[in-house]
């Protein structure tokens, strides 16, 4: 009994130096569990010792799990949470874009199925597509509206090395050729209550522990052990490049390390683009979109949105063109108004104002006629310039509020007069003649031509298709003005 007590104290002293680690939560898929048993014995005379050993291995399987869907990380120590991107107003045909983050939570690499759907209201067409982006915003997988596969890695930490290296069971991680962790990938390290995103800097794959005696035949000898070389993933700060995300900090595992048994999951940044063309006068189009991500078992599905609800992209503004026609007595230098008075022989000037108060209008054309009891006034050298007794030459002027172009009766004169980008055309027009009743055709907007209307944008720069982007000196609700003159018979 006394001997036992001493023995107990001895083992206390040995063990006190190193308190056993608590059990981890999980193990990385592909980990080799090696069991080596040794038998030691002596002969009957108690003079000769013998040993034999044998080993067996078991491999840890993948435990599939759904992706964590969240907004992209914006700082160190963030707590992943999901919220649909804010709503906005977009020109009809414009594009809503939003970024989300998909993070693996399994214990190993899995292939996830992605698909996207959209439901539109008050739209003739709508589309939703997704693009997988790298950490710097460049494209990893091109935009698609079809289903696609996404391979993401995750693993369970068994330790850290230095300031920046995560350790995993030797031989458990997939190689680069197998789509394993690779430099530039985003990984999310779990610190318990919060998580931090880093970029993979380097990967060094090791190998599992081994033992030379194994198989199906029992052993009478001992063998040679191979020491485990753990897999290493070196990480660095995930800096904000092109507004994709922000890990916020560099690793410092020598002071703060993730707990053994916690998950390190690869993160994919997914950009969702939604577009719609509104087709109901006065009613804006709306589009709901939902990205679905399912693991390879098909049992764990997560959504950008939710199982029962989608996210809403916002309003794709319906086209709302307003047209106003006014007249003034040009000879008497009168003001534009709904009516004017004139003596025979005096010149009237008409002003047609087209204002876009909604979404972009395409193929915008204005058809007018030379008023009764008048003749169109055509100038030789420019609108209001030169001999006004000619029948071919300049007859009208069109302005988009920034640039002004004089129009010729055969529409040939204004081709060279159109401004350059970002408003590549103001408008064209033609007159069938100068007599009363003959048609006057005007083709307005960017991309217009001598025979077809162009786009009357919501913003004076049509590439800025949201009010948020259309900032001064650009102008939301663009206005086009047409002027022409007639002489009263």
């Amino acid at each position, binding site marked *: 009994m006394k001997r*036992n007590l001493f*023995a*107990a104290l*001895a*083992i*206390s002293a*040995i*063990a*006190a130096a*190193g*308190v*056993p680690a*608590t*059990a*981890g*939560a*999980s*193990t990385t898929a592909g*980990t080799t*569990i*090696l*069991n*080596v*048993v*040794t*038998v*030691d*014995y*002596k*002969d*009957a005379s*108690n003079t*000769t010792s*013998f040993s*034999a*050993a*044998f*080993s*067996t*291995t*078991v*491999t*840890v*399987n993948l*435990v599939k799990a759904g992706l964590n869907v969240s907004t992209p990380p914006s700082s160190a120590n963030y707590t992943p949470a999901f919220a649909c991107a804010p709503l906005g107003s977009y020109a009809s045909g414009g594009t809503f874009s939003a970024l989300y983050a998909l993070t693996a939570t399994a*214990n190993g690499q899995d292939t996830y199925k992605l698909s996207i759907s959209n439901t539109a209201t008050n739209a003739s067409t709508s589309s939703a597509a997704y693009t997988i982006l790298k950490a710097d915003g460049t494209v990893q997988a091109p935009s698609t509206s079809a289903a696609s596969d996404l391979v993401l890695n995750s693993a369970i930490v068994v330790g850290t090395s230095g300031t920046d290296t995560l350790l995993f*069971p030797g031989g458990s991680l997939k190689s680069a050729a197998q789509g394993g962790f690779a430099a530039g990938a985003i990984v999310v390290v779990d610190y318990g209550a919060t998580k931090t995103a880093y970029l993979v800097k380097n990967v060094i794959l090791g190998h599992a*522990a081994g033992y030379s005696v194994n198989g199906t*035949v*029992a*052993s*009478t000898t001992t063998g040679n052990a191979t020491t*485990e070389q753990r897999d290493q993933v070196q990480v660095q700060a995930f800096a904000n490049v092109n507004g994709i995300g922000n890990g916020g900090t560099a690793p410092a595992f020598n002071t703060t390390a993730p707990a053994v*048994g916690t998950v390190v999951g690869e993160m994919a940044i997914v950009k969702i683009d939604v577009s719609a063309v509104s087709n109901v006068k006065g009613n804006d189009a709306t589009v709901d979109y939902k990205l679905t991500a399912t693991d390879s078992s098909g049992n764990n599905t997560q959504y950008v949105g939710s199982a029962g609800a989608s996210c809403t992209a916002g309003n794709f503004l319906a086209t709302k063109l307003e047209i106003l026609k006014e007249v003034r007595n040009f000879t008497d230098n009168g003001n534009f108004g709904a009516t004017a008075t004139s003596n025979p022989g005096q010149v009237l000037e008409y002003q047609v104002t087209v204002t876009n108060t909604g979404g972009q209008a395409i193929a915008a054309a204005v058809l007018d006629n030379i008023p009764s009891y008048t003749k169109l006034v055509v100038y030789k050298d420019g609108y209001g310039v030169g001999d006004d007794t000619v029948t071919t030459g300049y007859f009208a002027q069109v302005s988009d509020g920034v640039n002004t172009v004089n129009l010729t009766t055969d529409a040939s004169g204004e081709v060279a007069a159109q401004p350059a980008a970002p408003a590549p055309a103001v408008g064209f027009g033609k007159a069938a003649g100068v007599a009363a009743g003959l048609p006057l055709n005007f083709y307005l907007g960017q991309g217009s031509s001598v025979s077809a209307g162009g786009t009357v944008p919501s913003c004076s720069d049509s590439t800025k298709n949201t009010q948020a982007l259309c900032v001064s000196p650009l102008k939301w609700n663009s206005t086009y003005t047409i002027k022409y003159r007639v002489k009263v018979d």
Partner: protein
Amino acid sequence: MQRNKYLVAATVALALTSMPLAVWAQPKVTIAIKAEKEVNVTAKGKQVKKRVAAKGVQPGEEIIYTLSYVNSGTEAAKDVVISDPIPTGTAYIPGSASDADDLTFSIDKGKSFKKPTLLTYELKGSGGKMEKKVAAPEEYTDIRWTIPQIPAGGKGSVNFKVKVK
């Protein structure tokens, strides 16, 4: 005379064959491990558990290790010690080891072995004092069976279970 010659030759041959027996008599213990897991199968409409080879396991599953030994030698093996480190990535399941023989455990990677109740270590308590703790089964690092003797031709097995972390 001729008969005597054969008799002498036979005696010498017998002596030669019997001599090595005295020299080579020794124990020869072979050891092997089998890793299995239990799965639920339906047999005759009933759910029953069946043991299958554990090639792959999931975290949280149990592995049953069976260590089989045979003394195929010509004399008894004495002081037989079967040692098995608890595999990395697993935790011993309390009470799962076969207890037919002298069973002890280690929490210091095989440096010392004791009965579970004697496996203690010290930890700084909430008051700052060092407190003695009895090691939890998941903290065991090694398991050992001591068998006093395995007779020539004798065989047996021991087993234990671990849970994959």
